[in-house]
């Protein structure tokens, strides 16, 4: 990704990085436009689209009625017929409303039609707990999409990957879901300013090198794991990888790391059963079984919904302490 020569970067938040990605892609390609609820003058409920409507107008930053099934379906139809919609689903929990159009149309058309159509649609949505937003506004659902054949799913943990993955998603001729975590919009990082910068879908990033244990993390837990790695430095050397892309998943980077460290913790906010953790663990075992020195550890949400009360929400949400404990169990 880094070109020859000096790469220019700028410090910005994850929110700004996503907005910059949207701005650059709207600028680059007239066929790209956005739609979603209150993304125009309101700037999005979590203020991601911001002032884009002032620059691009209401044709290209379209407010929709509250009709997720309708506009996700319309985006699918539009993508099959020559335009490149970028949809915002306000909270990932609302994907329940649009799941039919997602799984039976968007995911299947290219294949069912024998390759007769492309599907250049991007779905951005925000997920995760931590805001006291209760069970219908806090879910982490990216495993549904990563599981479903025909859909790609990315989950940035840093500002750089937020920008690069959003741009790559929009440029892709396949349906890509970008899962933003609502608790990291304010997280800052260095972001390349080159408008041609993208993060290829399917590549993980080693965010910190280490030799004793690998933590494969996603979203908010990338930052939390980096903090833990810093704390443990001197005692335990922790390698932290941001998965970045959930499907396709960068098996090689994970396997290479596990071959080096012999230990793996998978940290993802999804419910523990039948999810990302299981997939990563299986790939590690399939490919690096004889390098493993200890059982693989999972850090995630016990199989509950996200409760409202802060006491209860703190209890179920995985965080740095859970990562630390998981590392402690195997080192």
């Amino acid at each position, binding site marked *: 990704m880094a070109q020859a020569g000096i790469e220019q970067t700028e410090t910005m938040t994850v929110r700004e990085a996503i907005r910059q990605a949207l701005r650059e892609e709207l600028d680059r390609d007239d066929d790209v436009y956005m739609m979603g609820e209150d993304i125009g003058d309101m700037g999005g409920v979590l203020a991601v689209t911001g002032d884009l409507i002032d620059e691009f107008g209401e044709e290209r930053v379209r407010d929709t009625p509250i009709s997720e099934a309708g506009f996700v379906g319309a985006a699918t139809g539009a993508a099959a017929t020559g335009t490149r919609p970028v949809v915002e689903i306000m909270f990932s929990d609302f994907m329940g409303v649009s799941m039919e159009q997602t799984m039976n149309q968007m995911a299947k058309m290219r294949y069912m039609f024998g390759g007769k159509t492309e599907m250049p649609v991007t779905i951005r949505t925000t997920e995760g707990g931590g805001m006291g937003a209760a069970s219908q506004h806090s879910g982490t659902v990216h495993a549904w999409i990563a599981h479903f054949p025909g859909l790609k799913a990315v989950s940035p943990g840093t500002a750089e990957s937020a920008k690069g993955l959003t741009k790559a998603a929009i440029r892709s001729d396949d349906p890509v879901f970008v899962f933003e975590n609502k608790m990291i919009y304010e997280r800052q990082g260095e972001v390349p300013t080159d408008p041609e910068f993208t993060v290829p879908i399917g590549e993980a990033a080693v965010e910190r090198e280490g030799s004793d244990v690998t933590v494969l993390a996603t979203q908010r837990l990338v930052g939390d794991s980096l903090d833990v790695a810093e704390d443990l430095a001197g005692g335990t050397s922790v390698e932290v990888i941001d998965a970045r892309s959930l499907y396709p998943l960068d098996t090689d980077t994970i396997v290479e790391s596990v071959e080096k460290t012999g230990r793996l913790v998978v940290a993802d906010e999804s419910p523990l059963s039948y999810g990302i953790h299981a997939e990563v663990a299986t790939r590690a075992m399939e490919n690096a079984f004889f390098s493993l020195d200890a059982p693989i550890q999972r850090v995630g949400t016990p199989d509950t919904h996200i409760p409202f009360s802060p006491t*209860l929400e703190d209890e179920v949400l995985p965080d740095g302490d859970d990562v630390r404990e998981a590392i402690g169990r195997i080192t």
Partner: protein
Amino acid sequence: MSDYTLDSAEGRVEALRRMLTIRSFDETAGERFADGEIPGFVHLYVGEEAVGVGTCAALNDDDYIASTHRGHGHCIAKGLNPKYMMAELYGKADGYCNGKGGSMHIADVDAGMLGANGIVGAGPPMATGAALSIDYQGRDQVAVGFLGDGAVAQGQVHEAVNLASTWNLPAIFVIENNRYGEGTPVEQQHNVDNLSDTAAAHGIPGVTVDGMDVTAVAEAVEEARKRARAGDGPTMIEAETYRYRGHYEGDEQVYRDEDEVERWREQDPIASFKERLIDRGELTEAVFEEMQAEAQATIENALAYAKEADDPHPSEAYEDMFGDSVPEIERFAQQATARTDGGDH
């Protein structure tokens, strides 16, 4: 019968009292949210009191309502106790949902309140389902599904109305048209003159009433209830109303100006109903002031109660996923209990 109807002077005064209680509850919730005491989102009902109260005044106690994200008013209109509502907003163990739901999910199924709802448009299918139970068992009840103007754009709303219509179920759909879905004006979300026009597509009556007038709402719901109980199926009622506060607390309201809010305030549902009761000799200014003070006292007590109440024990996070326990979750419950000195829970 409801414990208040608009057919008697007493009932009318009680309806006014409920509207005052709702306003006091929501203004207090707004202040406490601004002070950072209430987590999450709160959507307030200030200005819309006549819709919830008018509707519930025309219902029997054992009728059902399915609410929205803006549910506090529906709860109080239906007779829920502000103490346990406020405790829920504070995430406390003896809130209506034991702290698991918060403002957006207050529910009391035994009292016929099928829950506030975080999913726009999800209430009407719940109401259709309750009406199905009623019909199936031949019970003398009806079910009301509340929804906002924005929710009328949701497919599941129309599917629910169509089901209730084709199966002739005792359901009533009450649209609270407060002119906006978040920041988007109703005109940008729909292309019909009245939202109640959509009833025609489902072969049921649709009426539009003044939602700032508690009696107009109650009359329409009473009529709809009679129809439903006579076996003539559902009715759609659109109540034209307005929310004085932002979509949620903290909303900067870039989409409207203060003049518009002021114009609607002139038709305030509480002030206008109060005037009418005074004109009819059913109320005096002094009694009104007393009622207002009582409503405030009720909410202050509720607030004090909520603040004092206990937080849930962390292990409660693992309760209520299923009717029985499953090992996947049970092991976390045990860890949580063990962590807190030998499990004092």
